[in-house]
């Protein structure tokens, strides 16, 4: 049972970390700025794009297919997150855990089957 002021005080350490973090980053960048020589040329001011001259504008359209792939990837990445805690306890729980996880993965698999059959995975 915490009073309101105690409750907020427990967040003080978070605030301190936040302030220290901002100061640290600002201090490092600021020191760098003060110490380094500055001789800008047109080539140096170009956006760095892996050593190649940048093409087009910063706002470029990308193929909508990337979005679907990313979407499917995220679903399975999140799925994997749920598999880790399951792996810790499934020996203790036994067959029920296997069945439950099969149901869960089965759900997602149904979505993947749908995506595959609608042609989302065909690139061309």
């Amino acid at each position: 049972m915490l009073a309101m002021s105690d409750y907020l005080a427990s967040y003080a350490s978070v605030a301190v970390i936040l302030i220290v973090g901002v100061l640290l980053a600002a201090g490092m960048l600021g020191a760098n700025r003060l110490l380094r020589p500055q001789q800008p040329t047109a080539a140096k001011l170009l956006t760095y794009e892996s050593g190649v001259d940048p093409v087009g504008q910063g706002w470029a359209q990308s193929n909508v297919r990337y979005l679907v792939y990313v979407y499917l990837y995220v679903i399975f990445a999140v799925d994997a997150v749920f598999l880790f805690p399951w792996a810790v306890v499934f020996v203790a729980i036994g067959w029920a855990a296997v069945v439950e996880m099969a149901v869960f993965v089965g759900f997602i698999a149904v979505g993947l089957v749908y995506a595959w059959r609608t042609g989302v995975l065909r690139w061309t």
Partner: protein
Amino acid sequence: MTALTGAVLAQNALSAADLPQIGAPAIEYGTLSPVLAITATALIGVLVEAGAPRRARFGLQSAVAIVGILAALAATVWVSIHDLGKVSFEGTDLLARGKTVAEGALVVDGPTVFLWGLLLVFALVSMLMFAERGLEGGLSGFTGQAAVAPGGAGEREATMAGIEHTEIFPLAMFALLGMMVFPASNDLLTMFVALEVLSLPLYLLCGLARRRRLLSQEAAVKYFLLGAFSSAFFLYGIALVYGYSGSFTLAAIDTAVSNQIAGQNLLLAGMALISVGLLFKVSAVPFQAWTPDVYQGAPTAVTAFMAAGTKVAAFGALLRVFFVGFGGAQWDWRPLMMIVAVLTMVVGAVVLIRQTDVKRMLAYSAIAHSGFILTAFAGAYEGSAGTATITSVSAVMFYLAVYGFSTIGAFAIATLVRDGGGEVGHLARWAGLGRESPVLAGVFALFMLSFAGIPLTAGFMGKWTVFSAAWSGYAWPLVVAGVLTSAVAAYFYVRVIVLMFFADPEGDGPTVAVPSVMTSAVIAVTAAVTIVLGIVPGPVLDLAQNAGTFVR
């Protein structure tokens, strides 16, 4: 080196004995069978979409959806007979039946089962409207290909080829799943997940109209953005209430609220934010702005499904959160809810008078009806043991039944009044409908009278029950406001009837399309229910009354 690291790891590693014991969750599959049936229906729908040939898909999908809903209805009846044992909880001797299931995530009690039945019947009727193909020359009322630009060559090609989106059925099933879990949630996290499951498919369905696609897409985007916003409010409210009470479960929140375990500011802010999320879904003023645009733009079958289903689910959740979770703080939220109820009734009824479009008119009508339901909610009359006075929960549930049938029927009729460009929305074009098709105009007049609350229609019984519950809860100003705004709204409804029967048609007047047996069945059933509930409301009223209070 590796051996050494391994040894150190083994020393520090947690063994299974250090962890708290985690057992397999106990799931009451029998009690949850209605929800599981709808889940299975949705998944089968997705698989049909992946596997069945294009020609067979539409028929197969509608059959799967309808059979699935019928199975879930049968399961609901079974649950209502077998799993609703009477329970008593300390402090009161009020009637309550049911139990918490799925490790306390859901609660299947009288109100839950009543609302499940209601939702499934509404969904069944709506699916018949989804499956209607007689009005667009053998195609459904949904766009052929949502991805092509409106009015472009791709759209014509899709229409010529007879391509249809059959995903509408699984999407509707997922929305129905969310609607069923929403009022049954026993903790706020489950409730939030259910809110999203019910909302996301609806956002998508709103944008799939065959005609006036830009309007439809605008409706979908508006609904999505505002809905996402309200979900965020709801989620932040949950976080604050968790900060106050240290728990997500409604019973634990109730204990914390009753014992006033911490400063009230967190609780008040949390309650306010949660109520924003829920009042948005029931389209109460001042969170009603999306309603007319979305109801107008969405395909009419979706509007009917949404108007009836979302309202049932959201009011069920609203009642459960505030009666169970925040019951101890009712003197904090009731005055505010009274103001919201009055505002909703007044704004709904007054703006209704100025409407010229049928679907917008039904949208403002939906807002006004939310206000009437909120009177019973703000009255918060829990009943007393041994008396038969109708409680707030029962009154709200009965009103939802009455309103849902009338509104689905009215939208079904709106799909039939057409000209070359699709449905005729403008009310002036409905002039003279009584001469063109006396039966259809007569049934629409019946729904209007029911909305107005004229005796011998279901609307009258509904209004009587909610006002009675508000009166028992000493919220008599709300009853006065409700009766006055009913009179204002009745003026408009009667004007629509006069327009249909006694005004001269404009030009050729609208034509009434001949629907297939599906839409005819929808109109026949909803009209019959509207009359029967007006004349012999007893059985359904008893069902609502016997559902009892919420189980904590």
